[in-house]
């Protein structure tokens, strides 16, 4: 609540701010005649990671701040190019066996950690076992589920089962120092994407068993940068890792990562040239767009994420579980084009499907367009199906109280009220309580979001909406869809997979288990001297995948 007020205050102060910055803007402007002294720029990038990263242990990290740092400190077997195609990382190449169940990675030669030790295939074996080991209790351990023995380990109880024996049977091995073999329990074509994740990077056992191994003085990096300072709650400094040879040498000498908790203060730091990349809180979007200087520095782009509202299908007696027509009606009644403008400040695009644009398997089809008449007809049909009247509908829409969702919920309430004369009661809960409520007894309609872990439709279909997915809060389950997804998973290439995923998505959309609202968008400020920044739709922080190869142009400070 207080956070909202801060934001409110911020909005109120925008006028002051705009006036003041306009002043300083002109005063900083060099007069036309003077020649500014431009020294060769220090190759230092200054970014904000928004707070203390919860961990720099690659195995344990699950949050965006930690990942933002780890992307530069670690390097996985496979990586991305600028268009998110898979390219070799620490592995030079990999072979997939005919049955699709064995992947053999061949490491590049002469790979070293920041401490000078060689990176060997055994470090992957150790790292992957560490990830799946229930005693580690890593949040992302489930990405190992497809490996032989993985699902058994996921379900194991360390107090009962012989974990060490199970780990011995786990399907990873290192026949020699440069060969790493993964045995999958079943073909999983997307698995190479798993090998791009920060949780699958090589780790030295001697390092992770050091007391305080994630502190700067102990840190062993496999990535293009190494950790030189971690002042808790204050800043992190990365410097180029001179031992790194898995790709082009980093162009940056240093990355300084501030931890500014308050978004307004973070934007302020950008405006005072204390940051090179700035994020813009939604309240400030309009001001930034109107500012003659800042508007020139805006970088927009798509993000592989979706903002959606789910229907409760868990309760078999619930109106939405019983009536597809009602779900259709409630979806068609939302004018999402207007909603983006009104409730999202015009940032982002309407999500007409589950798989977002920019991801393989995206379909440029408008599933469920805004159609008031159709919505009303479907609504009437739904009611008669259920044998009830509109007055019998007592619906609740749930959302978490802490992050500006009220206006979105209000917008939707308004649309439903206009279309059907139905008042949907809004209920907001604190985040933790909200999530716990969703897993137990979801609201009739509930808000959530989803972002890509890896740019593959599997991550948006199987992980979100398949019958067994833990993230399927609404409880949607269609055997047909699951069968299609399973079939897609064993196809070797994307080209073979995509038609199956498309079929699955079409079926899901026809069932209307969720209202897809908006695909996320990046609205970032980049200083003009930041060059070779490579944003991808996979980034949670703009350019994070390729920070190390940014260059800083000479400029005045």
């Amino acid at each position: 609540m207080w956070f909202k007020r801060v934001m409110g205050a911020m909005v109120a102060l925008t006028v002051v701010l705009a006036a003041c910055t306009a002043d300083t803007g002109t005063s900083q402007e060099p007069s036309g005649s003077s020649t500014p002294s431009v020294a060769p720029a220090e190759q230092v990038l200054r970014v904000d990671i928004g707070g203390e990263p919860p961990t720099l242990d690659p195995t344990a990290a699950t949050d965006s701040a930690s990942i933002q740092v780890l992307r530069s400190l670690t390097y996985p077997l496979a990586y991305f190019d600028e268009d998110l195609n898979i390219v070799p990382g620490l592995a030079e190449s990999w072979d997939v066996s005919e049955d699709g169940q064995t992947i053999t990675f061949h490491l590049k030669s002469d790979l070293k950690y920041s401490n000078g030790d060689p990176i060997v295939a055994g470090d992957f074996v150790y790292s992957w076992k560490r990830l799946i080991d229930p005693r580690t209790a890593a949040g992302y351990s489930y990405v190992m589920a497809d490996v032989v023995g993985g699902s058994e380990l996921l379900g194991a109880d360390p107090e009962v089962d012989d974990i060490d024996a199970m780990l011995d049977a786990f399907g990873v091995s290192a026949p020699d120092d440069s060969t790493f073999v993964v045995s999958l329990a079943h073909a999983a074509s997307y698995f190479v994407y798993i090998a791009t994740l920060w949780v699958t990077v090589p780790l030295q056992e001697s390092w992770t068993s050091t007391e305080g191994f994630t502190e700067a003085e102990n840190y062993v990096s496999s990535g293009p940068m190494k950790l030189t300072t971690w002042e808790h709650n204050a800043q992190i400094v990365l410097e180029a890792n001179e031992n790194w040879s898995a790709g082009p040498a980093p162009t940056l000498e240093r990355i300084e990562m501030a931890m500014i908790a308050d978004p307004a203060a973070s934007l302020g730091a950008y405006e005072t040239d204390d940051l090179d990349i700035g994020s813009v809180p939604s309240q400030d979007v309009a001001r930034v767009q109107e500012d003659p200087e800042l508007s020139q520095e805006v970088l927009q782009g798509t993000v592989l994420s979706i903002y959606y509202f789910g229907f409760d299908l868990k309760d078999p007696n619930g109106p939405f579980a019983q009536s597809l027509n009602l779900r259709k009606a409630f979806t068609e009644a939302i004018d999402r084009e207007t909603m983006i403008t009104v409730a999202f400040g015009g940032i982002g695009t309407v999500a007409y499907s589950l798989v977002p644009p920019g991801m393989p398997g995206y379909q440029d089809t408008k599933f469920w367009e805004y159609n008031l008449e159709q919505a009303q007809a479907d609504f009437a049909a739904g009611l008669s199906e259920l044998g009830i009247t509109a007055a019998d509908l007592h619906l609740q829409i749930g959302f978490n109280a802490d992050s500006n969702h009220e206006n979105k919920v209000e917008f939707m309430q308004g649309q439903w009220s206009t279309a059907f004369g139905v008042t949907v009661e809004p209920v907001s809960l604190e985040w933790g309580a909200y999530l716990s409520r969703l897993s137990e007894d979801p609201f009739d309609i509930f808000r959530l979001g989803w972002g890509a872990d890896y740019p593959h439709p599997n991550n948006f279909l199987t992980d979100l909406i398949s019958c067994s997915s833990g993230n399927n809060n609404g409880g949607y389950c269609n055997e047909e869809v699951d069968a299609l997804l399973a079939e897609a998973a064993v196809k070797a290439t994307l080209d073979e997979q995509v038609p199956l995923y498309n079929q699955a998505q079409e079926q899901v959309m026809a069932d209307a288990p969720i209202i897809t609202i908006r695909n996320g968008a990046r609205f970032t400020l980049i200083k003009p001297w930041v060059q070779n920044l490579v944003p991808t739709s996979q980034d949670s922080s703009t350019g994070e995948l390729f920070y190390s190869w940014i260059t800083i142009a000479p400029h005045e400070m």
Partner: protein
Amino acid sequence: MGAYLIRRVLWIIPVLFVVSIITFSLMHAVPGGPWSKEKKLPPSVIEHLDQKYNLDEPVFIQYLNWVGPLQFDEGALQRDEADNLVFGGLLAGDLGPSYKYLDRSVNDIVADGIWVTVQLGLMSFILSVIVGIPLGVIAALRHNGIPDYAATFVSIIGIATPTFVASILLLVVFSIALGWFQPNSLDWRTDPSSWVLPVIALSLFPIAQIARYTRASMLEVTRRDYVRTAHSKGVKEGSVVVVHMIRNALIPVVTILGPLLAFLITGSFITEFIFSVPGIGRYYVTSIGQRDYGVIMAMTMLYAAAIAIMNLVVDVLYAYIDPRIRYS
């Protein structure tokens, strides 16, 4: 006095005990847990995490673990044979693991930030006292004069402006627009200018509060007989104020200083958040949202202890200022 102090200090222990039980129960009664995320972890992973952090035990066992099995030789974040975390417990001075900052123990987190927070609180406290008291005194001495109205105006602004508004205002005007201070200082230890804005932001309310109380108290004291006596002795105006009035006027003010100091040290959350101060104040609130049980307990215990000690200090100070009060 000595016996009194010892008794008071000893009393803090049962108070903290009760606070810890209440907090622990409430904390675990709230739905959600440290592993709740928008992207859900599979149930098996959550089970593993619960096992590792001993969250699979009944709450009262967890509480006993937290209090500590009196293993004085155990360090933080030790592991048992099943690789579950074992920690010495509160009695061994071990506050356990953080459930959010996975690399660190709560002891580390507290040790890192506590002095920053205490320093921020104390600096604000000192500023509040050295500004608030004179402001109140001047207002009272120039009762119904321009200084009085000015001071009253300042007080009302200070009391009516929430800390976050003041913080943002200061940040926007002095850091962003005027550029006098860095919006995110990285040199809290070496650069004194880092502290200026947060200290001011945090002090505004207490300054106003202290000024208001001091003014009212001074006005009351002005009418006291002993002040007339002082005048009748021909004591200089300034000495009457300093020697005869302020000390008496401060007696009621001191009673609010304890809670105020506690407020400053515990209430720095917003200020720390907005000015990116690397203290522990921000955990006071964020740890609850994150269900970071270890940090919640640590913060609660620290703050409960701080408030208890602050009240004790104030009581002692009270006796020092008012000779009529003697504790036994």
